[in-house]
């Protein structure tokens, strides 16, 4: 049976900052939704269903916030679904919304993801003690640092790679008005001199804590034909999961990530991702994850990812720009971060990414991951309608 082609016709983000004290949770999500509707030149009445996502409820201290947010998102009288797949949730949420259109259950769907980290404390939200279980080892950095070490040992990557990524992403963020961190005076030397937090991860190689939301309007062929701006099309989307901890797990390059990418490429007819994909929005919360994911996603051979980074291929003007928006390293409203990757990939192929536009981008990958590198969600968007 054939699926309905799915188009992205509206994108809205909030300006991401450390604390949005001027708005409630409802005010924050409505701002992003409103901007997405404006972009698509649609009204609340045009939306058939709402799919929202965020990271753990403990981050704001509200259990099942979709109940409270129904009014703010114009969902009253409509179906509203709430997805939660850890850090990959922003991506998964968009994919669940995509399926609603693809299955022809609904024609036009609003999807939104958010995090208002200033309402609470994400560190403590992740650190509720459970008897007989491994604690999270002083936040996410503590969990991921040993796997970065493993990558360095395995590939022989010089210890300068991480700082190159951070320096690149923070410079890209200067071109993105919605990015949280705008460090105008940053130099490579400053990144390299920043304090060591979890060896080998330095302060300037970690993501910030942000308040923010991201929304997209997805629609079918008919909806796309009516859209005021060129639509982007979803050419492939997939989710994959594997357990947090088990003997034989490859934390450097998890199988779930490889399988997820392979599924997306199969759907999109991509055989050589390095050549056929024009821009990548990759979930890189700690700088070293760029070279790691370049390998995991099939852009580089095993052990070669760091060489792509080092040679400048992933720079905004390189052959394979990675995180032209500044990425998670510059903006991290956790639950929204995955959707921002998806949305930024979409902006690229719509040609509406502004100062961080990659020239001539026609095909872009949005990537999200979460948990202990165990949940993956990705989509590939293109300027052309799938199947021509």
């Amino acid at each position: 049976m054939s699926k309905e082609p799915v188009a992205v016709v509206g994108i809205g983000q909030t300006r991401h900052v450390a604390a949005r004290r001027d708005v409630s949770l409802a005010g924050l999500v409505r701002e992003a939704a409103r901007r997405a509707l404006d972009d698509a030149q649609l009204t609340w009445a045009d939306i058939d269903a709402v799919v929202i996502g965020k990271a753990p409820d403990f981050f704001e201290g509200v259990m099942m916030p979709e109940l409270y947010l129904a009014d703010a998102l114009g969902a009253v009288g409509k179906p509203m679904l709430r997805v939660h797949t850890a850090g990959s949730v922003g991506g998964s949420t968009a994919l669940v919304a995509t399926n609603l259109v693809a299955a022809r259950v609904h024609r036009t769907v609003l999807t939104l993801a958010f995090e208002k980290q200033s309402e609470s404390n994400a560190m403590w939200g992740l650190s509720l003690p459970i008897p007989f279980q491994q604690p999270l080892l002083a936040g996410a950095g503590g969990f991921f640092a040993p796997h970065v070490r493993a990558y360095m040992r395995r590939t022989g990557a010089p210890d300068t790679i991480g700082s190159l990524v951070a320096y690149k992403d923070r410079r890209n963020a200067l071109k993105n008005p919605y990015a949280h961190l705008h460090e105008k005076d940053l130099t490579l030397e400053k990144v390299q001199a920043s304090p060591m937090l979890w060896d080998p991860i330095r302060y300037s190689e970690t993501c910030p804590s942000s308040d923010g939301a991201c929304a997209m309007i997805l629609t079918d062929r008919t909806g796309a034909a009516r859209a005021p701006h060129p639509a982007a099309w979803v050419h492939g989307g997939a989710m994959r999961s594997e357990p947090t901890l088990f003997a034989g797990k490859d934390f450097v390059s998890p199988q779930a990530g490889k399988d997820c990418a392979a599924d997306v490429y199969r759907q999109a007819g991509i055989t050589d991702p390095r050549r056929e994909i024009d821009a990548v929005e990759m979930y890189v919360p700690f700088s070293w994850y760029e070279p790691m994911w370049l390998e995991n996603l099939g852009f580089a051979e095993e052990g070669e990812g760091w060489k792509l980074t080092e040679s400048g291929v992933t720079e905004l003007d390189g052959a394979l720009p990675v995180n032209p928006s500044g990425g998670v390293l510059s903006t991290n409203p956790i639950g929204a971060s995955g959707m921002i990757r998806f949305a930024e990939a979409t902006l690229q192929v719509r040609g509406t990414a502004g100062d961080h536009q990659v020239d001539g981008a026609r095909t872009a990958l949005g990537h999200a991951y979460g948990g202990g590198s165990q949940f993956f969600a990705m989509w590939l968007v293109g300027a052309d309608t799938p199947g021509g």
Partner: protein
Amino acid sequence: MREVAIVAFGQSVHVRDSAETSEVEMLMPVLHDVLEQTGLAARDIDFTCSGSSDYLAGRAFSFTMALDGVGAWPPISESHVEMDGAWALYEAWVKLLTGEAETALVYAYGKSSPGDVREVLTRQLDPYYVAPLWPDSVALAALQAQALIDAGLTDERVLAGIAARSRTAAESNPHAQLRGVVPAGEHLVAPLRTGDCPPIGDGAAAVVLAAGDTARRLTDRPAWIRGLDHRIEAHALGVRDLTDSPSTRLAAERAGAFARPVDTAELHAPFTSQEVVLRRALKLDAPDSTVRINPSGGALATNPVMAAGLIRLGEAAARIHRGESDRALAHATSGPCLQQNLVAVLEGE
């Protein structure tokens, strides 16, 4: 629309306190049960989706550990909703409709015992204006019950009758937590008495979905999902008519529930008064109606939060599997005073 059916349903024995069992331990026998019913192994399942809530477990990412119970290696195509498992079933149903999957495993679990569930549920209220007042779930249900009584739509005697009918029906349900004659008891929050309220329990449930001929191959009598829809209402109780449930009515309409009569209705009504609201919204109160309401005993007999809605779908499907129903309605709810409602229509071949 592609044909999709529930082909297997399993649930745990629901208990007041499962402190000695982890969520994975509670879930695994149920998962094995539904897989054995279909002869499928976890690796044969194309898509997996679960429903649960971190707030019950009292920690973030509680669902990540539960996933281990599925045996998630090699990696699986998987998703999770922080909602009742009925909505996980909805997500899986949509996935099957796209044609990307032939089979899906859906599960849900909830342990209310680690905390005080009445207090925990206050955290799902408006965080700025309402939650700080800690109005608990029984108090909010009592507001709704009183509104119904004031409107002349029910009285305490009728409510007691709903409680008695449900728990009598639960006598034949080996999984039920509360069975047989249960005293109406004192007012817990007037006008609701202890007998009008659900038991607090820990439990898990799972179903397997399959499409078309795959469903026919996996079971003799699939419970076909003829329609499935859900709708949400405003959050603030002050802007809703608590005696009515327009979201249930709309979901039922969209699911095709009113096209022909059903013979069974599994309603997710944790409080007796909520059954009154749902029966009206679903037009189940005709004087000559022969519909069997909550033959399992419903949520008044078994109410593991997060799984109770999925259990309604499972119980309705199981009656079709057993040949006891030809067309059944299943309902699930979320939020205070029936804020969000899902309706499914299931049929035998």
